[in-house]
């Protein structure tokens, strides 16, 4: 007990030296508090997003493979690139995988309707096919794809969840052959809830040249407000691609016309893995169940990177900064402790000559260091907690800026890319720009651990010095 009492008195007595050691410790602890708070919070965010994005699987056509395939199959110099589709039965078969915890299916089909005039009808329609090379002089024939003016979107509810679309009147489609239309389309055509319309489309087998008409008779059960961009970035602008012309219906409604081996109804599915680690196993299973090689089994890495990238950068910066401060702080504390012991050599010699054991002398010095550390810990925790949020905001803003600059540069150097605009959710994703830091028990324990390690490091240096000191030598030197 007297050792602790003496240590406490010594801390107060040797103010200059202890303030110097305390200032270094304080700086290290404040940095550790900020860095660990950032690390803990960002780790939890990253894990959360990893779980969400790592589990969310998409089956997307790889447009480069599709184009290569189309070029390989071209016989007349004209390359017809048709977005491939997966038969609905395959989607259902894939959804039965034991690696999944659930799935969301969507379907879309291009259609026309004689009694509805589409928004931007004057721009013409679209086929959903891309024509490359040798296209000049194509004449309309039986093989010319239908020019769709609208699209049926089965179970496409992402915009409603994101808040860019909202039900304006009526109700959401729930039963087979129910639909809702945009308020723009409804107003320009005086569409009322309860009206029924017949939409026609077509299915094609490009290889065999078979064309099969499709027909849907849908009842309007509601209208929706739409504040999405009318056209997806980079897409052709016509009535078919205008989002105000999207007729929202159920998945089952769209796929009821689907026929095996025929293109024209595009089905997409988002599968949710039980665990992100199961991606390869799931991919192997779906390929074995008939997924064409032109499809990729992917997670939404682009969106994940856009949202979480700056947070990961922030975490990296925080950890690196903490490591540097810990190393340098540790070295400085070790040096100061070493100098302090040299300064106190005489005191140690006297105590040893009085019969105090080496272990007790060392414990006394370690206790002094511990007391200084505890004071710095209390002050450092408070200050670090106050500073953590503004520091994080500033660092994160820097990371977002850097990420955006890097993206702009990439885009300006990127050249032409074949993309599927509807599926490019990364473009819409906003990076996390606001992180609420919290100081949890785990973080506090880590900080206490770091502080104790630093105190012990200084203590160890003291102990190693003391074991070398013989009281008679110290006193003889002094005398």
């Amino acid at each position: 007990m007297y050792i602790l009492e003496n240590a406490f008195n010594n801390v107060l007595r040797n103010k200059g030296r202890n303030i110097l050691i305390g200032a270094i410790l304080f700086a290290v602890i404040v940095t550790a508090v900020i860095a660990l708070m950032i690390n803990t919070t960002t780790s939890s965010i990253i894990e959360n997003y990893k779980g969400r994005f790592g589990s969310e699987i998409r089956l997307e056509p790889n447009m480069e493979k599709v184009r290569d395939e189309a070029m390989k199959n071209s016989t007349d110099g004209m390359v017809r690139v048709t977005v491939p589709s997966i038969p609905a039965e395959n989607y259902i078969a894939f959804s039965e995988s034991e690696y999944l915890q659930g799935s969301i299916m969507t379907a879309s089909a291009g259609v026309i309707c004689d009694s509805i005039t589409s928004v931007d009808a004057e721009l013409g329609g679209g086929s959903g096919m891309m024509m490359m090379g040798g296209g000049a002089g194509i004449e309309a024939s039986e093989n010319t794809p239908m020019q769709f003016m609208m699209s049926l979107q089965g179970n496409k509810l992402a915009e409603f969840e994101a808040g860019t679309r909202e039900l304006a009147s009526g109700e959401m489609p729930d039963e087979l052959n129910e639909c809702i239309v945009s308020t723009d389309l409804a107003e320009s055509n005086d569409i009322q809830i309860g009206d029924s319309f017949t939409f026609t489309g077509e299915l094609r087998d490009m290889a065999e040249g078979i064309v099969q008409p499709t027909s849907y008779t849908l009842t309007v059960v509601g209208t929706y407000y739409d504040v999405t961009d009318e056209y997806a970035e980079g897409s052709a602008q016509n009535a078919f691609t205008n989002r105000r012309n999207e007729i929202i219906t159920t998945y089952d409604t769209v796929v009821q016309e689907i026929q095996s081996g025929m293109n024209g109804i595009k089905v997409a599915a988002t599968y949710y893995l039980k665990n992100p680690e199961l991606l390869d196993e799931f991919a192997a299973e779906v390929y074995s169940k008939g997924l064409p090689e032109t499809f990729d089994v992917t997670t939404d890495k682009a969106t994940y990177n856009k949202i979480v990238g700056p947070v990961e950068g922030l975490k990296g910066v925080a950890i690196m900064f903490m490591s540097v401060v810990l190393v340098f702080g540790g070295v400085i504390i070790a040096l100061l402790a070493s100098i302090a012991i040299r300064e106190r050599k005489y005191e140690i010699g006297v105590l040893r000559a009085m019969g105090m054991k080496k272990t007790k002398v060392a414990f006394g010095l370690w206790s002094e260091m511990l007391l200084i550390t505890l004071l710095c810990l209390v002050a450092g925790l408070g200050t670090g907690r106050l500073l953590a949020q503004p520091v994080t905001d500033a660092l994160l803003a820097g990371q977002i800026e850097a990420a955006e600059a890097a993206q702009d540069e990439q885009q300006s150097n990127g050249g032409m890319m074949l993309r599927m605009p509807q599926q490019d959710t990364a473009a819409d994703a906003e990076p996390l720009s606001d992180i609420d830091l919290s100081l949890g028990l785990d973080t506090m324990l880590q900080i206490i651990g770091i502080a104790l390690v630093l105190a012990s490091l200084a203590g160890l240096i003291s102990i190693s010095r003391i074991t070398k000191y013989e009281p008679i030598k110290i006193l003889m030197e002094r005398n």
Partner: protein
Amino acid sequence: MNVLTVNNISYQYEGSKKNVLKGISAGFEAGKVYTLVGKSGSGKSTMLSLISGLDICKNGEILYKDADLRVIDRDKYRARDIGVIFQSYNLLTNVTAVQNIVLSLHISKAPEKDKKSFAYSLLEKVGIDRETADRPVLKLSGGEQQRVGIARAISHNPDMIIADEPTGNLDRDTEAEILKIFINLAHSENKCVIIVTHSKKVSEIADVIYGISDGKIAFHKQLPIEKNS
């Protein structure tokens, strides 16, 4: 019955080939004042280091109550069994006089419950009043520091008091007072007092004088106790 027995000890410092002590033997009893006299470099301070357990001899043996100092816990020996008074005081300079004594009482695990009061009374016994006792050691005069050193040496009631040139830095009056304290400790409190000195005056207060020259006992003189009482 000897409290401390020195048997044929020799000593040489690390890196030196010269023996500072060459086969010294001596006995020290309770209730007597001993002086080790000799010129500078004769080996008397080395002998003091050895008998105070601050250093160990490789040849010969030093027995405290028949226990070899090389074997026993020397920290405990220094803390409880002996009190050492240094020529340059060797007090803790960053604390007050009384705190020096209190710390010594703690180290020696002295039984007194109110160690501070006991420390004040001890200091008073050696002529340090309460006000002086509460002053930092560095603000005390040489004589006052030496008195604090004596109080610290006797604070834990040791069997032996070993003093190295205890009056070397003091004026005549203070020297006389301090020597009186040593005589009193030996004759009234039955302590074994060993004083290392080269002062003739100090050596004259001894009951037994060991003259050391060139690392050997050159003479051994026993004086009648009545003379010093």
